């Protein structure tokens, strides 16, 4: 009972977020030269987007986050101090320079 209620709620929430996301028009181009953010935007530029594995929760807001924190987070994924499988895979493919430019990119994109 509890599970089915949760699933129903989760579905409804996801659908309403999807509706909101569709209404928004994309304005500025999402990437800047040098920052390999095309990998990030599929999850982190969709308000309310949910990670579905291994647990369901909304992926964190990173626009406007501290630049040094984003760098530290990506490096923690890269060396295994943080475990999210998708983020570990992505971070392992990034150089220090790429991490720095991704962090700078998102730090400037707060509201």
């Amino acid at each position: 009972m509890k599970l089915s209620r949760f699933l129903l709620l989760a579905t409804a929430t996801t659908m309403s977020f999807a509706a909101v996301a569709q209404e928004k028009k994309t304005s500025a181009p999402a990437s800047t030269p040098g920052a390999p953010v095309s990998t990030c935007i599929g999850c982190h530029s969709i308000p309310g987007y949910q990670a579905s594995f291994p647990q369901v929760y909304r992926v964190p807001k990173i626009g406007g986050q501290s630049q040094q924190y984003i760098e530290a987070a990506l490096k923690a994924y890269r060396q295994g101090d943080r475990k999210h499988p998708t983020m570990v895979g992505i971070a392992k493919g990034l150089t220090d320079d790429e991490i720095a430019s991704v962090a700078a990119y998102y730090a400037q994109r707060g509201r």
Partner: protein
Amino acid sequence: MKRSLIIFALAVAAQPAIAADAKKGEQLAQQQCAACHGKDFVTAVDPTYPKLAGQYVDYLEKALRDYQTGARKNAIMAGLAKPLSRDDIRNLAAYLSSLPGPLSNEKR
């Protein structure tokens, strides 16, 4: 009798989960978290510490649970998260996510 039992069961099932208490979360956050993350949870004392104001409630809960279990490794946060109860975590996350701040996942 049978009918009243059914009605009782339905009433119990229909109860919403007890809501998180952001007021309690505020007290705890100001005591335990503000010294490093900043009173407003936007201006942290160290730039490697994240801004928490306005972050998603479910992500904040998950982060604290991961510090408790060791799935996320950070010596300071592990020590702080260990003693928190499930309700403490829900209350903290409710408070922090309600605060105004620059965090955004909007495409821009």
